[in-house]
């Protein structure tokens, strides 16, 4: 019997107007998006290789250790998955005078956007009258007048609806992938296909979740016009409002000093406060020394001092002790303040991390955020990739400076007086930064809680739909 109802649902949906519109919309939007993103990716690849050759030219002419700090930086190249998912790389560069403000005004479309916004809306449009609409048509009464159990009806409705929703999505995705595959410049690896498979699985869960939500809302209303209102309200809150509010709520609950405040505090600690401490320590140490060596109390000019040092070994010892004490006092001040600055920066970074984590957690109230994190983490364009990139670029950084120290040692071995800081060096054998995406295993591990959460939301909505339908007055 269930199969009959599933078939009925599928047929009913396929023949409906909304199915045709959904199919048309997705068949246009997804391929156009992939086409445009693929071209964008190829452009970025060209730009990256052009820049690389510029850097090589630069290093040939100006390979001084003093001149490469701003040039030899680890950079994340475009990855083949950018043909489908842009992720955080769409972020705006605020560190340069010339920035590109266009994405701030309108965030750019990608597959994650299509699924997260369009597919969730479509799911609710399909589901809103699943129960209340049939009641209005009077078919619900007729169905249940036969020996049909209510659990079977609701199960079949969710299953049939989700299947019909996925058909247009998968069709459009296949057309989009054809666009990518046709391009000779894009080289998708096995890991990319694996990630895409998992993202598709996430999409299935995400769409089913919204479909179950729609059926639940439909089973709470007796008129389909009211159930669409509630569905849209819930959709607006879950999809459009909660994610946007979450970082602001997190910054309210777990405030962090702004980066500007932290830098100002660090400057103050390293500047005026260090000077005060240095002077204080110097004065203290000098007091002890003056008690021991009265000669230090005499105000002597530098020349007199030198003469005295030559003449009198005791005075010499006194002055040397004084120089050492002063140096020691300032070293101490630098150390103490340096530790303080580190502590301030560390504390700020920890707070920032805690705030980010909180924002992430709050935003996960919305399935949209869960799906977005899942998809960007799997495609290595998200938060996890940022941390991963930080780690591998750190490793490369250390490697490069080990290499640099070796080069400097070689130079100094040849000529101890060399100005290695400003001497041109052949750096063609330097360790190069090569970005390799994180192995799929790690990404999957990161995305696992997302899958569980999507499944959990789906189950909760399904149970709610089930319970509401059992109690539904079909008359």
């Amino acid at each position, binding site marked *: 019997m269930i199969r009959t109802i599933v078939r009925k649902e599928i047929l009913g949906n396929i023949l409906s107007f909304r199915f045709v519109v959904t199919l048309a919309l997705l068949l246009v939007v997804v391929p156009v998006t992939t086409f445009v993103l693929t071209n964008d990716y190829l452009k970025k690849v060209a730009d990256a290789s052009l820049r690389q050759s510029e850097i090589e030219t630069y290093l040939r002419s100006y390979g001084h250790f003093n001149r490469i700090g701003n040039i030899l930086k680890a950079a994340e190249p475009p990855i083949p998955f950018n043909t489908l998912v842009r992720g955080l790389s769409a972020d705006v560069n605020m560190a340069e005078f010339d920035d590109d403000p266009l994405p701030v005004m309108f965030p750019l*479309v990608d597959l994650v956007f299509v699924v997260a916004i369009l597919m969730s809306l479509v799911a609710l449009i399909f589901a809103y009258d699943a129960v209340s609409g049939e009641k209005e048509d009077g078919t619900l009464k007729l169905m249940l007048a036969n020996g049909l159990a209510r659990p079977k009806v609701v199960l079949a409705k969710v299953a049939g609806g989700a299947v019909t929703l996925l058909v247009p999505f998968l069709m459009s995705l296949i057309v989009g992938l054809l666009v990518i595959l046709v391009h000779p410049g894009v080289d998708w690896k096995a890991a990319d296909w694996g990630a895409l498979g998992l993202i598709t699985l996430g999409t299935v869960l995400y769409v089913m979740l919204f479909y179950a939500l729609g059926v639940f809302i439909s089973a709470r209303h007796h008129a389909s016009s009211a159930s669409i209102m509630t569905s849209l309200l819930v959709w607006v809150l879950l999809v459009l409002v909660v994610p946007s509010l979450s970082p602001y709520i997190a910054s309210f609950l777990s405030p962090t000093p702004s980066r500007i405040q932290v830098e100002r505090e660090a400057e103050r600690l390293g500047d005026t406060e260090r000077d005060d401490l240095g002077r204080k320590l110097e004065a203290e140490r000098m007091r002890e020394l003056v008690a021991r060596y009265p000669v230090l109390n005499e105000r002597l000019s530098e020349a007199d001092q030198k003469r005295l040092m030559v003449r009198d070994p005791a005075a010499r010892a006194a002055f040397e002790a004084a120089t050492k004490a002063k140096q020691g006092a300032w070293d101490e001040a630098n150390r103490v303040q340096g530790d303080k600055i580190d502590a301030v920066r560390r504390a700020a970074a920890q707070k920032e991390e805690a705030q980010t984590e909180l924002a992430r957690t709050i935003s996960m109230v919305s399935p949209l955020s869960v799906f*977005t994190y899942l998809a960007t983490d799997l495609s290595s364009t998200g938060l996890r990739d940022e941390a991963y990139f930080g780690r591998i670029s750190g490793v490369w950084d250390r490697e490069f400076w080990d290499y640099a120290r070796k080069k400097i040692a070689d130079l100094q071995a040849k000529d101890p007086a060399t100005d290695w800081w400003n001497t041109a060096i052949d750096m063609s054998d330097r360790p190069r930064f090569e970005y390799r995406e994180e192995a799929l295993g790690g990404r999957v591990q990161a995305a696992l809680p997302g899958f569980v959460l999507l499944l959990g939301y789906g189950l909760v909505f399904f149970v709610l739909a089930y319970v509401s339908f059992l109690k539904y007055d079909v008359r």
Partner: protein
Amino acid sequence: MTWTIVRKEILANLLSYKFYVVILLAAVLVATSFFIMTRDYKERLADYSLIRPKPGEPIAVNPPNPLSIFAKGLDEAMARSFEVGPTGISVRAGQKSGNTVFAFFPTPDFLYIVRVVLSLVALLFGFDQVSREKEAGTLRQMLANQTSRSAILIGKWAGNFLSLAVPFLLVTTLGIAVLGLDPDIRFSSDQVLRLGLILALTLVYIAFFLSLGILVSALTRRASSSLVILLFVWALLVFVLPNLGTLVARQMVDVPSVRALSEKRQQVWTREVLLRIRGVGDWASHIKTISAENDALEADYRVKFDRLVNLSKNINRISPVASFVYAATEIAGTGIGEEGAYKSEVGRYKNAVLGKRLASPDLKSSDYPAFLYRYRPLGRVLVRGALFDTAWLAVCGILFFALSYFVFVRYDVR
């Protein structure tokens, strides 16, 4: 007669479930958005007081714009601190927070609420205006009397517009009045005027979506199919078209990446510094060369970038939603045009500082001119595009209304 229909529509709305859900939603969202964005603005103001240059420092900073509470736009980019050194402009204090979750989702400012939520609300008010009354059979009865079709349509439009616009304006004005009580937030009279214009623009925007809703309602027989069509059209207009347009424009205009540009600058600077170390020429001439070459790079980038901006703006304008965003951000002074003007002003300031530096014998001065940015006057903002965008939005709205009239005149009410 029209007036009776207006009254009937308003009363029907007041008694409906939809009205309360929708107005409550809009009110809560507007209030939340004001609260959050005010806090954000105050935090940025506190940062500004830290990075504000001391007299004589060659630093260009613009205070955060209070209108960014309503339309944040590019204000964060414009409130960065730029230091003018001997080799050019560098960003001293940029990003406010390292919380990357901010980068994932759009800013929930007033503009976002209007653009996304209010447009949907307007469609929900319009989608069943004709088809529902037909389904209910009341349309026949109305037309059986002496009521003309145009009176019905105008009455419906006006009644729904009022029942949406009045509560919305009340909530927003109340919110703005509460903001006005905050001693940290001061609006100049010019900014109050701009805010008024933004609110007026919002009404035009609502009217556009309401007309669209009525048009589709008159084109369909059933309210449910009208809603489905409208939701798809809405998703296209609000999300897909404006976001895709920018990407499409990028396919057509080649703009070097910002990174490539900064690497080129680095090259110029290193070349000149090394020449100087080798003893070729004096510092002043090298600084002049660096500045001139950087200016040329900048000018080249600007030309290409402006072409990209104009093209993507024009493509995006296919959706009047984009026009709305452009007009609102430009009026607020946080739009792309304003940011461009600001950048040019910083460029001019750089040249003034450089002139001062070169005029002093040791190429240093402790007395650089102060930087002050004056926002483009409202008249120029309007002439430079905001008026066009508003007009385009209004024309689209009127067009849809006129079309719905033509369709409704032929509508089979049985």
